[in-house]
């Protein structure tokens, strides 16, 4: 009960800034969620004191009055038990309990709670579970900046903090930023030139439209999607054998380029196989449900593998489409969100009925194994391939018939010796025919897809998450705290679930999608935790802007390109990213949007840019994954001896210069050039990558074979600009890498560097010769004269230096 003295503790509580207005969702819910709800929340099994602080109503809710004790008495601190419990110094009473491992409530948090109780202790529905509506555009004082609604929301927030937006970035920065952001590649000098020359008012709009029309746009968008759905080229478990789903990846690229609506994009993936007459695209897209990790048969228990696969599948739907951590409710009701275990298994029931084995084959042979396919799959033979297959199949049938006949004859005949020989010959030709057929089948591409079983498999709750302890049967249904699915005759299926996801009444789908788009262009989402929109996720920095984007995304017919276009055309996006160091320190993630964002390029973009600058980038679209060079022996030290494929064989020809998106992704050990720059392993769904800055990254940029080789190509190109004086050559090189013209001081530093390298290599002719001999460019290797070799080595080091600048690996 309340002890009068404890009220005085409030005196020591930090004061709240005078202007602050406390709102439940923004200020109070995060505190309750982090510090109280674990024991006083949705998880009935572990709930203490029959009290819930995540909701106000019901007998358990925070507004209950029991035995005259108020948990929260609006406007009355003294009679609010919650207040007493957080300010008391009585170890038996204080909350959270000192032995609970939950951090205590800070003075700031107490101040917020105090203000909240004093102003009424009202609860609000959880923001992310209320469907977005079009918010009114806020009033702003600065009228000149922009009419675009997005900018008004950004500006209103800035003005509330008495800040102003940054000026617009210069045109060179803008074209580099937009080109990297929309295509994952740097602009060429010609493109920069054309943009600078275009002085029309809508030059930037034209640039954006031109970039959105490039096929590289779809490739770049796909990169993010592949992280989200943990796309890989291997099974990810145990042997981690090869598997084939590159047609799925190619479908994603085409979908972004063709601007397939997000509603269809989602439905094809979740339930493409359940259209009445599914198109090839819809079937290929349904491979989404097969992208989970899978173990090869032989060691694990198939029933357990089955459950793991379905949980993985449901988790990916949760992360990718719903922004919820559904998997937390496998074993028990969610501790923080209202997701019950029953909710989880209701969704599980939609995804546990695929007609596919829970484990891949334990045998390491056969054409399907060798082309990474496991039923159900779809093949794409050309008519010629199909014809050849039929012919070769006929050969096998004929050879097998001949063998059977000979065997039958042998039984009837006396001359065993003679027929033995014949049987051996026939058996050999059957084997040969089979091998020829197998060799042919391996050349026919295919991809994993979804296929629903005819019967509906009953779904039980797994008691405490154990696959072999089955509880009550549950029916397929949406989670109880979200809008209900429309009722229908017979069982709901994945198609109904997909339709429910894209229903305009679903509060999550559009918000989660636009938030990721925003994150792509500003570095951080409006909801920073783009994988978690639940109570433990972060409250959006601009809630109304998020709703505006989500609402209009749906209104536009889920038009991804249109939304992207709108975002990159805003003034907010076009701001300069220059600021004072203190401003970077105050707002390192640029949540306030008082400047343009500045962040390191992703691993794929880092590599693709270097290949592009060397002139080697191979822009071929689609196809099977390729293997660019990686250090020798990496797979061998960690993989199992019978893993297929066993060793890493670098691709040949131009394939090593394909965009990094097409890199073969072995989930147990992906290409280190990618993971060192924060690419995820693709074992779990990742909605946002970290961006670190490490010495290992510096080593990759300095020493990786392709990255250094690129400098020799670059130098070779520079040395051909014979008509240019040295400083112009340097200007040309600098502009190619950074899109900027170097100022006099920069040029001077680069000229100085060049002279240093020249001097060094003329004194070290052997080093220059070594460097030249290792270039993959024949023309370079043909430089024989020592003076020319030194000159070439110096220019290579200059180019190499430019490729190692901070600005080069950064989008500014």
């Amino acid at each position, binding site marked *: 009960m309340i002890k009068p003295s404890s009220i005085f503790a409030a005196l020591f509580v930090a004061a709240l800034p005078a202007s602050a207005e406390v709102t439940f969702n923004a200020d109070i819910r995060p505190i309750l969620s982090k510090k109280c709800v674990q024991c006083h929340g949705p998880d009935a099994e572990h709930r203490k004191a029959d009290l819930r602080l995540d909701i106000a109503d019901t007998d358990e809710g925070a507004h209950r009055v029991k035995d005259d004790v108020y948990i929260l008495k609006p406007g009355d601190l003294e009679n609010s038990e919650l207040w007493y419990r957080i300010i008391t110094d009585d170890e038996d009473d204080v909350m959270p309990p000192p032995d609970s*491992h939950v951090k205590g409530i*800070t003075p700031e948090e107490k101040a917020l709670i105090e203000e909240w109780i004093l102003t009424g202790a009202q609860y609000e529905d959880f923001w992310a579970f209320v469907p977005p509506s079009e918010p009114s555009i806020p009033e702003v004082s600065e009228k000149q900046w922009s009419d675009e609604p997005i900018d008004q929301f950004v500006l209103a927030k800035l003005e509330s903090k008495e800040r102003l937006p940054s000026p617009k970035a210069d045109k060179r920065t803008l074209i580099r930023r937009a080109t990297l952001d929309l295509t994952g590649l740097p602009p060429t000098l010609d493109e920069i030139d054309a943009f600078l020359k275009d002085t029309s008012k809508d030059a930037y709009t034209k640039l954006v439209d031109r970039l959105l029309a490039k096929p590289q746009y779809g490739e770049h968008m796909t990169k993010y999607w592949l992280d989200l759905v943990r796309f890989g080229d291997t099974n990810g478990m145990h042997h981690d054998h090869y598997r084939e789903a590159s047609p799925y990846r190619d479908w994603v690229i085409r979908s972004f380029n063709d601007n397939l609506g997000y509603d269809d994009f989602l439905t094809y993936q979740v339930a493409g196989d359940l259209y009445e007459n599914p198109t090839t695209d819809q079937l290929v897209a349904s491979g989404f449900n097969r992208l989970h990790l899978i173990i090869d048969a032989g060691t694990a228990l198939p029933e357990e593998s089955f459950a793991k696969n379905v949980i993985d599948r449901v988790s990916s739907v949760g992360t990718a489409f719903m922004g919820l*951590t559904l998997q*937390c409710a496998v074993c028990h009701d969610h501790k923080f969100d209202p997701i019950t275990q029953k909710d989880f298994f209701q969704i599980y029931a939609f995804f546990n009925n695929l007609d596919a084995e829970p484990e891949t084959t334990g045998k390491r042979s056969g054409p399907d194994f060798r082309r990474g396919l496991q039923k159900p799959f779809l093949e794409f033979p050309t008519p010629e391939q199909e014809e050849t297959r039929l012919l070769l199949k006929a050969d096998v049938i004929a050879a097998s018939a001949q063998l059977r006949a000979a065997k039958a004859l042998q039984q009837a005949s006396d001359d065993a010796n003679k027929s033995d020989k014949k049987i051996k010959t026939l058996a050999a030709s059957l084997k040969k025919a089979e091998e020829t057929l197998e060799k042919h089948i391996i050349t026919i591409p295919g991809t994993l897809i979804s296929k629903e079983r005819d019967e509906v498999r009953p779904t039980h709750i797994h008691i405490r998450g154990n696959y072999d302890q089955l509880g009550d049967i549950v029916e397929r249904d949406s989670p109880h705290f979200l809008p209900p699915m429309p009722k229908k005759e017979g069982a709901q299926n994945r198609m109904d679930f997909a339709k429910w996801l894209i229903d305009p009444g679903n509060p999550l789908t559009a918000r989660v999608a636009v938030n990721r788009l925003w994150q792509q262009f500003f570095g951080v989402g409006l909801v920073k935790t783009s994988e978690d929109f639940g109570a433990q996720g972060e409250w959006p920095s601009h809630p109304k802007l998020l709703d505006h984007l989500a609402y209009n995304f749906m209104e536009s017919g889920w038009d991804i390109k249109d939304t992207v276009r709108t975002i990159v055309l805003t003034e907010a996006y076009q701001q300069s990213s220059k600021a004072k160091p203190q401003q970077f320190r105050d707002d390192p993630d640029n949540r306030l949007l008082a400047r343009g964002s500045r962040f390191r390029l992703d691993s794929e973009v880092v590599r693709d840019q270097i290949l592009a600058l060397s002139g080697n980038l191979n822009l071929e679209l689609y196809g099977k994954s390729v293997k660019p060079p990686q250090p020798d022996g990496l797979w061998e030290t960690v993989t199992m001896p019978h893993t297929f494929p066993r060793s890493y064989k670098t691709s040949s020809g131009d394939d090593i210069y394909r965009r990094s998106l097409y890199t073969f992704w072995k989930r147990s050990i992906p290409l280190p050039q990618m993971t060192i720059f924060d690419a995820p392993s693709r074992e779990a769904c990742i909605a946002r990558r970290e961006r670190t800055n*490490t010495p290992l990254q510096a080593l990759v940029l300095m020493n990786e074979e392709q990255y250094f080789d690129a400098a020799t190509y670059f130098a070779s190109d520079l040395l051909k600009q014979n008509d240019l004086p040295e400083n112009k050559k340097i200007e040309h090189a600098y502009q190619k890498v950074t899109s900027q013209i170097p100022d006099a001081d920069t040029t001077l530093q680069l000229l100085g560097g060049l002279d240093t390298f020249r001097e060094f290599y003329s004194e070290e002719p052997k080093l220059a010769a070594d460097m030249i001999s290792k270039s993959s460019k024949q023309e370079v290797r043909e430089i024989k004269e020592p003076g020319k070799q030194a000159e070439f080595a110096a220019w290579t080091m200059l180019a190499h230096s430019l490729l190692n600048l901070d600005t080069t690996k950064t989008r500014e």
Partner: protein
Amino acid sequence: MKLPETDLLQSFNNAQHRRQFLKTSAMGLGASVMGSLLGGTTQATAGMDTGFANKTGPKAKRVIFLFMAGAPSQMDLFDHKPKLGKLFNTPLPDSITNGQRVTTMTKGKEKLIAPSMFKFSKHGKSGMEMSELLPHLGKVADDICLIRSTHTDSINHDPGKTLFCTGTEIPGKASMGSWLSYGLGKMNQDLPDFVVLNSAFWSGDKSNVQALQSRLWGSGFLPSMHQGVAFQPAGDPVLFLSNPAGVSRKARHKMLDLVSGLNQKHFTEVGDPEIQTTIAQQEMAFRMQMSVPELADLSDEPDHVYDLYGPESRKSGSFARNCLIARRMAERDVRFIQLFHRGWDHHVGLPGKIRGQAYDVDQACSGLIQDLKQRGLLEDTLVVFAGEFGRTTYCQGTLKHDQYGRDHHPRCFTTWMAGAGVKGGLTYGATDEFSYNIAENPVHVRDFNATILNRLGIDHNKLVFPFLGLDQKLTGVDPAYVVKDILT
């Protein structure tokens, strides 16, 4: 023993956390580190987490984790069951197995007892029992604490190793070394905080060898700067360490001078402190180009040191060689050094294979402990030895007195720890007479990991990182307990 404050200050200054540190948000550990840095006063930590330090304080500065991938047989190495001899080829009583799940390899098959063919003897003052396969390890029996009652949840290698190294069976979580890198920051100036050494070869099983996944030393949800750096047995010890052909150290120096100058200029124009981090990291890379080869170059090790680790230590890529390199790393204050030795998965033909494996590790482990001890490093270095689970008392495959195999067994297995205030000479926990169930003092893998963190001065419940709506911990969501009985 407490880390001097200057170390912490340095670790703060050098930690590549940059943005994490700069945040004023209450989330994350950067704030915790800062809290302890500033003496943990409430003013300094207002609005921040209050840290993860435990009451014991740090007893270990570093950890050497010897991971026996494939799961060694406890009853052939450490867990002596003399009474089983009489039960050769008899069925394991149902009352013992109690309907527990087994792998598909022995599911539904009769479970016939396979007693160990190896003799056991007592070692040291403590009289610790070990089998004849470990004569050298016996010499340091009084320095190690044998835990015969370790147990886990997994019956398969991939999830089992993932659970041990990252706290859950589900991929995507942070590994132990990355947690330490994240939590404790840098302890040295020119080497990574978390290094992984994988044996390039082994003597036991060549055909049935389980894979190692880079997730075992991955950073999961933590920033990737904390991931383990896997040293390579051949070529560059650290990937991409060597300069390309034609670039000498001097040329690299000149190149970095130019680049740093331009970066610094850019920083004054743009203002982003991230640029300064890049400059610092390029310098660190340059230092690593010196320090790593120096570390990996064993030419200054005298013969008597090689002799301590055994003849295998002269072969590049051997486990023994890696133990010697681990000691060099410990001297250079690499915080977490993890060795993986594969080849322990002895489903069939166990006696021959385990002889080979024991040969690989016996003298090497013993040598490592003696070497650390003679240099005064064992006091503040924790050495741990563990596989992902144990093996069954019943046979898989052919059963003869001197020929048998064993399936996976999660319910009990033996691990050991040494150094950093762990009670030497103690045999902790016990299994039933079959080495099938635990009879006393069970130690779950998460308790084992909590105990490792305890030695480093960390409360395992408080070293957390918010991800997917949860305060993630190395020990996962189920409660974990420090095994206090084994600590001095």
